């Protein structure tokens, strides 16, 4: 057990370090990128070489610089989606656990309903309604797919909290529903919420990449990693590096946040969470 726990916590440490690297790059990206964002060199579709460390694309843009710039864009997009989808999902889950009776049951079923479709299909459907122009539809679409997943976990996490004595005490003292939820329930959900957000960040990044691959993700002027892969996929046979390297970046980032999230979950294990409850 000790050996494994050590490895697990070391993996989590690696995850933390890797995630920090990614965040750092997203912050200082434009400073360390070898080429500017409008630097079109004359070497089109060149494989990795002296001037272009990861090669260049069909417009002569350096792939490394493009990927570095894409870090900030992709991360911002993913964080936005996780926050929006997470906020709605958390609210949904809390309310479904709090409301007893027919309404609560109905809301619970609606979570299952939202969950029964693969995320990408729900996202595509929302895009059919919201249109594909601009960044907003993508954010809305992925948030809508994400919300039920948050809601399901939040529902499960809220139920035991509602059985706690301090909740009953608050209600007995006449606290309003809002107060009970905001002051007593929500602070105790910070742990699972943080873990979920960390775990779903890579999920969102990959989902956005898939949507961009299908041509329905970020608009062409927004260089998310998914977009970079989508742009390069046409040249797969002659310039495979255009798809390989952005994919590797996605794997690196996803791995780092997955490891970090797993580590966080071990740390904030719900089984020992009773001692973490705040009154």
């Amino acid at each position, binding site marked *: 057990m000790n050996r494994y726990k050590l490895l697990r916590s070391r993996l989590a440490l690696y995850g933390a370090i890797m995630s920090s690297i990614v965040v750092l790059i997203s912050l200082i990206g434009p400073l360390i990128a070898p080429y500017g964002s409008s630097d079109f060199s004359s070497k089109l579709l060149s494989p990795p070489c002296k001037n272009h460390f990861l090669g260049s694309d069909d417009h002569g843009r350096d792939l490394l610089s493009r990927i570095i710039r894409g870090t900030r864009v992709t991360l911002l997009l993913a964080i936005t989606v996780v926050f929006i989808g997470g906020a709605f999902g958390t609210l949904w889950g809390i309310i479904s656990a709090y409301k007893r009776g027919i309404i609560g049951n109905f809301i619970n079923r609606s979570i299952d309903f939202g969950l029964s479709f693969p995320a990408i299909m729900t996202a595509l459907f929302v895009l059919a309604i919201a249109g594909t122009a601009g960044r907003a539809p993508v954010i809305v679409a992925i948030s809508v797919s994400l919300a039920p997943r948050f809601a399901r976990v939040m529902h499960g996490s809220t139920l035991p909290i509602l059985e706690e004595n301090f909740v009953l005490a608050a209600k007995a003292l006449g606290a309003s529903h809002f107060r009970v939820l905001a002051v007593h329930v929500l602070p105790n959900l910070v742990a699972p919420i943080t873990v979920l957000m960390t775990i779903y960040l890579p999920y969102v990044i990959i989902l956005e990449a*898939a949507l961009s691959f299908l041509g329905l993700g970020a608009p062409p002027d927004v260089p998310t990693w998914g977009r970079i892969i989508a742009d390069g996929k046409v040249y797969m046979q002659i310039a495979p590096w255009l798809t390989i390297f952005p994919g590797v970046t996605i794997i690196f980032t996803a791995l780092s946040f997955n490891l970090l999230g797993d580590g966080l979950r071990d740390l904030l294990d719900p089984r020992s969470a009773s001692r973490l409850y705040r009154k």
Partner: protein
Amino acid sequence: MLLYIFRRIILGIITIFVTVTIVFFALRFIPGDPAEVWLGDYATPELIELTRIKWNLDKPIWWQYTRYMKNIMRGDLGDSLRMKLPVFKLLIRHYPFTLRLVFLGTSLAILIAIPAGVAAAVRQNSLTDMFVMMLSFFFISMPLFWLGLILLFVFSFRLDWFPSIGNEEGGNFYTYFLHLALPSICLGLVQAGLISRMVRSTMIDILTKDYINVIRSKGLSEYVILFKHALRNALASIVSLIGVSFVLSLAGIVVLEMVFSRPGLGRLYVTAIAERDYPLIQGCILVIASGVVLVNLLVDISYGMIDPRIRHE
């Protein structure tokens, strides 16, 4: 038991019904005029009006809805806007490709994940366990379509082991294998990554239960404990994992059919979305929802057969 099955069937039908209804109204409550969206660049006021009349968009929405529902009962799912063919025909023509891939991908995933998860659980904290965990981490951090592209590039473009275009229609077993191998492996590997972790945690839960300790202290061999007792209890969870795996496959289908150019439902759905082909979108969702409901139904029924506690709830 029959009552249990009956209730599940009714629930399934209601789910499909609700899904189709929500999809129908969601598509029509967008801001803007559907007719204008469909016509795109050709939208002149006269043409818009003609389109509205042709597709009954000027009628009250309840009228449209009841008409659509009645048509579904008769098997008429409308005509695809862009392809001018009946939606039903399109679905029939394209679903086998998806079905084959889903079946193969799910089977492969289960075949990999269950032994891997069980091995990891039994030899917990060992090298095997860490190996399985690392691999699964690796595969779930990977975009499915990227893996497909890489596999396609390596094994199809460069090594020429598998064909990159065409599909397996009307061929023999060998043709099927050639065309289905790469996408199935792709789908299977990534899904296995997800499922093996669930198998592992289920098995760990069971293996730490008291009754396992009891029969172990009674002197039964580890082999017997594992296969006769532990796995039997895990069977229910494993069966429900098949349902989960199926839904995950559907997600994978959507991108993989684009990567490997397979004319299945996933590609049909994406094309319909891109072209705002409402009847086709509704038809695809109907089929997919029915598939999900059917699989969940089968899983629930097996669940009831395996675990007597469930059917008497």
